[in-house]
């Protein structure tokens, strides 16, 4: 069974249809990248997987989105629970103005965990998972803002890992970072895909090329092509995709 199954999804902001009849399946432990010109609906689509779009008033979804076989838009779905299972990392690093430790522990605590020992252990584990442990283990009590941008972004990843999601969503996770930090994040994604299913939005086609197993190309709310990344970048089937990745677009 596929990890994520999207069928005939339409999405509306008020009267504006941002996504048009999208269907795609994502296998477990793969990295899938969404590319496409600005405003094509990548962010809208990725935010469907943890129902982040619910927060925007007057939005509407048609079609079905299944994670592990369960339709996440059906009635009775606990959105908070869903979001625990589907971690998200944002464009700009957004650590809370708390200590490094508290940042990572936040998700555990809001979900009612109190056991100190367990939290400590989980924090360490998550920081290790995000390849940040070595850099911060001596200053867990310091403010997260003291970290560099790249470290902050990895902290945000650690924070997402702490609540043991099975899916990680990343909306342009490296676009605010310098090339070196970007490389570190990409490496991390490469490592993480052993354990997580990762969906990543990126403006940077090379990044999509480097980190992802499969790539979906979006244009004006439609998914034009979805295939192995190698195929997309060497021999895409659609003219439109070809034009976009070779820069002939527009």
């Amino acid at each position, binding site marked *: 069974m596929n990890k994520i199954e999207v069928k005939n999804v339409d999405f509306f902001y008020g009267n504006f249809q941002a996504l048009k009849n999208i269907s795609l399946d994502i296998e477990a432990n793969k990295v899938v990248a969404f590319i496409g010109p600005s405003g094509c609906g990548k962010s809208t689509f990725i935010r469907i997987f943890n129902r982040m779009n619910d927060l925007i008033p007057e939005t509407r979804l048609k079609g079905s989105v299944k994670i592990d076989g369960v339709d996440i838009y059906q009635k009775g779905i*606990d959105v*908070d*629970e869903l979001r625990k299972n589907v971690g998200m990392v944002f464009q700009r690093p957004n650590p809370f103005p708390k200590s490094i430790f508290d940042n990572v522990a936040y998700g555990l605590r*809001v*979900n*009612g965990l109190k056991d100190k020992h367990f939290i400590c252990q989980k924090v360490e584990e998550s920081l290790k998972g995000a390849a940040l442990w070595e850099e911060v283990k001596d200053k867990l009590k310091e403010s997260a803002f003291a970290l560099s941008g790249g470290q902050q972004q990895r902290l945000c990843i650690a924070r997402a890992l702490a609540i043991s999601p099975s899916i990680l969503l990343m909306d342009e996770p490296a676009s605010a970072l310098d090339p070196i930090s970007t490389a570190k994040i990409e490496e991390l994604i490469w490592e993480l895909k052993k354990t997580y299913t990762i969906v990543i939005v990126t403006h940077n086609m090379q990044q999509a090329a480097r980190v992802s197993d499969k790539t979906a190309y979006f244009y004006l709310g439609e998914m034009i092509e979805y295939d192995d990344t190698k195929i997309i970048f060497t021999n895409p089937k659609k003219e439109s995709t070809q034009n976009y990745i070779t820069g002939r677009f527009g």
Partner: protein
Amino acid sequence: MNITLKKRRSQHLAFGIVSLLTYSIVAILIIILAFIIIRGIGVINWEFLSTAPTDGMTGGGIFPAIVGTCYLILGSAAFAFPVGIMSGIYMNEYAPKGKLVRFIRMMTNNLSGIPSIVFGLFGMALFVNKLSFGDSILAGSLTLALLSLPLVIRTTEEALKAIPYSFREGSYALGATKLQTIRRVTLPMALPNITTGLILAVGRVSGETAPILFTCAAYFLPQLPSGVLDQCMALPYHLYVLATSGTNMELQRPIAYGTALVLIMIVLLVNITATVVRRYFANKVKMN
């Protein structure tokens, strides 16, 4: 599952309380407005607005008070606006960044924190007594100007600060001088926000009582002031007098309601104008 339920329940409770408290504020506001409007609306007519009080302030209108308030607004604006705007420009454009600006800003903040009655004291000591303007429109205006100065400075500064440095750089890079840049780029861009600030300052000035108690306001003047060194009546003071110290409370009450309503109308007018100005400029940028 348990924890989810707990989370949900506490959220419901908290949101309920928050909404309740918020709506009670709205209720209070509505009560105040309704109270004054309902009681005052009957009083207001053209005659009320255009005649002077009569019969020991138990009859007639509030015309001199309206005029006086206008004089005070104009007088204070004449002083506070140019000085305030220039001060704002100095702080944001000329003053070397760092200690000096911080000092000036601190001073401005401090000035704005001073209670209005202290301005009254000061105005009395300096303008009325020391400079012997006497109780006069001039003394009152200057006092009110000082009071509104921080507001003008701050809005100017904020408005200028909101303009990205890149616009200035763009201008310099085209060979423009600093003054040219301010005049042609920075100020025009800041104008909408500055204007809004100025209008709000006017609103504030029009409602102040304490500063003019001892610098300007007259209990009763049947005729209009003839110069800046005359006293004048003012709406807020007039209301105060009507409400607290009168000869015949019963007869004064309706006039007081009317005066209060006029004051509130001014506030409404100011707020609406500010909003309209803001919208107008915002649209101008968008539409074009």
